[in-house]
């Protein structure tokens, strides 16, 4: 580069968009139960997801494009979760964090818990654990980024 030649990068518009989207995921500030504590740790300095471009937890669904459903979704909360999801602009992604959100978890025999948030809204990445460690959630976010770029494998 020192010779003064302009650096040239060729790509498709699609790829550039995907790359941009995957590196600027803005999560929604949204915690439902104990898993939310681990989600907060992900944002804090030790694990720090801002290294991957998703540092700012937005307080409005209209400004965010990633919903981390962290914690038990009760039947009473489910219509509200759906509403928040509907208010987010496209493209939008959902990470289901914790066994509660994936299939009911410890409350699977209860009367009040939705057995899997994917009955209410579509989910992109599932992060199992009770609660998942911050590292696991970070891995989930990286997997989602790969998925957005079309590189993810099942």
């Amino acid at each position, binding site marked *: 580069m020192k010779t003064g030649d302009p650096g040239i990068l060729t790509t498709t518009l699609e790829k550039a968009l995907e790359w941009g989207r995957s590196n600027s995921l803005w999560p929604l500030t949204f915690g439902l139960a104990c898993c939310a504590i681990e989600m907060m740790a992900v944002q804090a300095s030790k694990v720090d997801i801002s290294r991957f471009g998703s540092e700012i937890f937005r307080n409005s669904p209209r400004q965010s494009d990633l919903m981390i459903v962290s914690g038990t979704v009760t*039947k*009473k909360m*489910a*219509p*509200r979760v*759906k509403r928040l999801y509907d208010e987010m602009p496209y493209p939008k992604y959902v990470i289901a964090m914790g066994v509660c959100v994936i299939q009911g978890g410890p409350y699977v*025999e209860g*009367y*009040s818990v939705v057995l899997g948030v994917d*009955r*209410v809204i579509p989910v992109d990445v599932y992060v199992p654990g009770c609660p998942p460690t911050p590292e696991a959630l970070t891995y989930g976010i990286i997997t989602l980024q790969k998925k957005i770029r079309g590189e993810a494998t099942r």
Partner: protein
Amino acid sequence: MMEFQPGEERGKDGRRIIKVRKEDLIGTLTKLKAEGYIHLSLITGVDRKDFIEVVYHLHSFERNEYISVKTVTYNSEVPSVTSLWKSADWEEREEYDLVGIRFIGHPNLKRMFLPENWVGHPLRKDYDLKNVQYINVDEEGEDYATFDPGDGW
């Protein structure tokens, strides 16, 4: 069938447990309140299959001591203690909502957490978990219960 004997005993932590008949409940609680147990910290309902046990946990700030008063009901009806403690209002509504105890004399005995048209009281032993109910929100923002999983979500 379990029998209920009025009397007094000590719990594992040394706490006094007073067992009274339903008719003597208000009298006993009034007496204890006058003795200094002025804080009603909790009301619990226990479904013992044959009867329902209602437990009142009282606290005395002066003595720093807790005390439990137990009573039983065979027809799910218990006199309300809202005349003694205002805080009993929501506690009793919660008991009514989840255990189905009807508090006679309560000013506003409505469900606390679940929608008004929810069928059954979920913490009862005879509650049918197979009959799954769902909750959705109507146009006005009011919750309602439904048996139809396709309704809303």
